[in-house]
Structure formats: structure tokens, C-alpha cells
């Protein structure tokens, strides 16, 4: 697909995603019932969990593209890995700012070593490392390779981190006031959550495509500048 086509697709998906976000807000404010134990604060759940889902999907996409990039050295794969990492970074930031707001009500403290929150914090730092490595090499091609290695090792390490934060928590019980989610989530809450996941995924892919198109245009620009200079 041409860069302009990707851009158009990205813009369209982003608009759908933004409309969906308004819809999600409507659902979670007017439609879904209030959770009995935690009350209104539990509504943060409908943006917090989808954002977490999106950021983990992002590191998956980024690592996958990075791996194939190292193999085939197709610039488009590196652009996709970069776009996904940037999206993952934004959505991980959402998780990290909404988590404490919820936690303050649910657990009485802004930060707890809740497994998902801890995992996301480390994921956020993995993304940070990704961008720092990318930006600190003299030869951009080298930066791309280094960043791909960071994304790959990060993705491989995440299951281990997950296991360890769960294990750590089982050793040190947290002051849990109420369980946020369980297998028996009422139907309307589940529906709202699934809508949230869908909306965030669409939004992610919309912006992902725009970011990808941006990187394609930058490459085009660089190629042109090189041609005029030689």
C-alpha cells in the first residue's frame, strides 16, 4: 500500500477510534451499573485494562517486527516496530497514571505493587530504553538494530517478569479492599470492558498507521535530500 493510502487508512481508523472512545465514555458513565464494593472508582477499570492490553499488544508487535527486521532488513519493518513502540509507550503511560488514581480509592494508597501495574511500569522502562538506544547512535542504522534487540529481549523477558511479580505478591499480601475483577464479572461490565478493548485497539492501530506513514515520508525526504546533495 502507498504511504498516502496508509495515511488515509490511519486517519479513518483514528476517527472511528475517537468516536468509539466517546461511546465508551457514555457506556461507562450512563449505562454500566456501579460495582457494589468499590463504587464509582471502579469505572476507571474500563480505560485502565484496555490501555494495559494495548500496551502489551504493542510490545508484541514491536518485537515481532524487530525480529523480522533483523532477519530481512526491510526498513518498513523497522518503521512498524518504532510506531508500535511509540504507541505502546503512550498506552503504558495511560495505565501508569490511571492505576494510582484507582488504587488510591481501592487500596487507600497511590502505588501498590499490584502485578499488572508493576509489569506495566517495567514495560514502560523497556520502551524508554528502546527510544534512548535509538536516539543515541551516530549511525541511524545501528540505532535501529540496537532498538530491535531491546524490543526482542524485552518481549522475551516479560513472561518472566509476569511470573515474578505474581510470585512476589503471593508472598507479600497487599491491602486489598476489594477484588477488582474476577471470573464472575457481571454481563454489562464485561460488555463495557470488551467495548473498551475494541476501542483502544482500533485507536492504537489508527495512530499506529499514521505514525508508520510519517516514518515512510521521513525516509522519502531523506532520500530526496541525499539525491540533491550529491
Amino acid at each position: 500500500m502507498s504511504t498516502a493510502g496508509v495515511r488515509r487508512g490511519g486517519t479513518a481508523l483514528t476517527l472511528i477510534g475517537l468516536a468509539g472512545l466517546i461511546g465508551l465514555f457514555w457506556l461507562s458513565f450512563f449505562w454500566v451499573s456501579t460495582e457494589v464494593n468499590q463504587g464509582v472508582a471502579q469505572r476507571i477499570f474500563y480505560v485502565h485494562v484496555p490501555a494495559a492490553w494495548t500496551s502489551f499488544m504493542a510490545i508484541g508487535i514491536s518485537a515481532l517486527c524487530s525480529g523480522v527486521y533483523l532477519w530481512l532488513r526491510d526498513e518498513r519493518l523497522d518503521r512498524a516496530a518504532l510506531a508500535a513502540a511509540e504507541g505502546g509507550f503512550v498506552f503504558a503511560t495511560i495505565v501508569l497514571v490511571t492505576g494510582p488514581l484507582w488504587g488510591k480509592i481501592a487500596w487507600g494508597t497511590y502505588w501498590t505493587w499490584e502485578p499488572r501495574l508493576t509489569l506495566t511500569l517495567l514495560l514502560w522502562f523497556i520502551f524508554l530504553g528502546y527510544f534512548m538506544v535509538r536516539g543515541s547512535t551516530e549511525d541511524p542504522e545501528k540505532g535501529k538494530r540496537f532498538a530491535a534487540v531491546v524490543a526482542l529481549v524485552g518481549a522475551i523477558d516479560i513472561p518472566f517478569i509476569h511470573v515474578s511479580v505474581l510470585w512476589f505478591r503471593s508472598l507479600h499480601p497487599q491491602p486489598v479492599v476489594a477484588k477488582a475483577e474476577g471470573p464472575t464479572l457481571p454481563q454489562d461490565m464485561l460488555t463495557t470492558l470488551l467495548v473498551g478493548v475494541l476501542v483502544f485497539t482500533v485507536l492504537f492501530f489508527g495512530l499506529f498507521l499514521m505514525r508508520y506513514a510519517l516514518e515512510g515520508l521521513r525516509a522519502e525526504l531523506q532520500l530526496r535530500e541525499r539525491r540533491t546533495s550529491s
Partner: protein
Amino acid sequence: MSTYLRQLAAIVRKDLVLEFRSKDRLVAMGAFAVLAAVLFNFSLDNASVRPRDVLAGLVWMTLVFGGLLGVGRTFHLEAEDDAFRGLMTSPAPKDAVYLAKVVVNFVLVYGLSVLALGVFSLFLAVDVGANLPGTLLVLALGALGFVALSTLFAAVSTGTTMGETLLPVLVFPLLLPMVVFGAGATGRLIAGRPFAEVAGNVRVLGAFAVAAVAAGAVLFRFVVEE
């Protein structure tokens, strides 16, 4: 295969000889372990904290910080006179170079962690004799996982303009599993609990080390290519 082992052994031997002749990293890491023990002793309030309870955590933090201090300089050894270029244009496979560096760094970091265990036990008057073989095994697996990751990223950070300052940002988030399971197991072993209780931890530590070494061996060639 025998050529592979010969190349690997040559790099290991060369690095160990250089290490013992210059003693740069040996002295720096050894001094780090002892001085960390001194500072930790004065940073703890003995009235409210029992050294026995925090010893494992302190040993693991010393392994991580002191280890990074040494491992970060892995490729500086090769930088003088451009020797790394010579190594890279030789027929030695890149994974052999990586594995050799892992072996050498493991010797250093494991030595550091065992030294830290001894010095801390002496300074903080904690008996670590119970389950000592188990403790040493846990430290060995932890040191291996640590070295596998940090050697790979030492190569990355050496290739950037930021150098070693970048290393903690890249490596610390990835080390959480090692610290959680390693420090947890060490703490219980020092407390005199049976080894069977930490067998699960040891398995995860082992899996982590194997995954880290495998990932490093595969990915190293992409880091050092020019």
C-alpha cells in the same frame, strides 16, 4: 566443533590473562563489595532492622550494582588499538565471542557475589553456613542470568554515544525476575529453611539464565555488526 571450542577457549584465556595482569576490574569489583558492606552497615538502624533479614537483599543488590560496574567495561578491553576489529574480522563466530565474554564475566560476577556474601556475613555478623551449597547454587544461576543480559547490553551501550550511563536503564527492568527469585531463595536458605522449599525458585532462575544466554548468543551478532 572443536575449532569452535578452541576459538572460545582462546578468547576466554586471553581475557582472563588480561584481567589478571591489569587487575582493573578485579580490584574495582572487589573494593566495591567490601565498601558496599561498610556503607550498608552504617545505613541500617540495628535497633529496628535485623541484619539477618536483609542480608540476602543486600548481597543481590551488590551483585547487580557491582556486577554492572564490571560488565559495563567488557568491551573497553577490546577498544584499545582497535583489537575488537581484529576479533570481528577473524573466523571466530560471533556467538563464540559472546559466550566467551559471558564465561569471563561470570567468573568475575560470581566471584563478586561470593565475596559479598562472605564479607556481609562477617561485617553484619550473620551466619550463612546453613544451606551454603544451595546458596552458592542460587547465586551462580543468578549471576549467569545477570551476566548473559548485561554482557549483551554492554555491547549495545558501548556502541552508543551515551556509553555505560545507558546500561542501567536497559538492564535493570529486565533483571526483576532474577532479583525476585534469587533474593527470595537466598533469604530463605540463609534463614535455614530446607532447600526443597526454594526448588521452584531455582527452576525459574535456571530457565531465566538459559533463556538469557540463548537470546544473547542469537542477538549478539546484530549488535556488533558494522
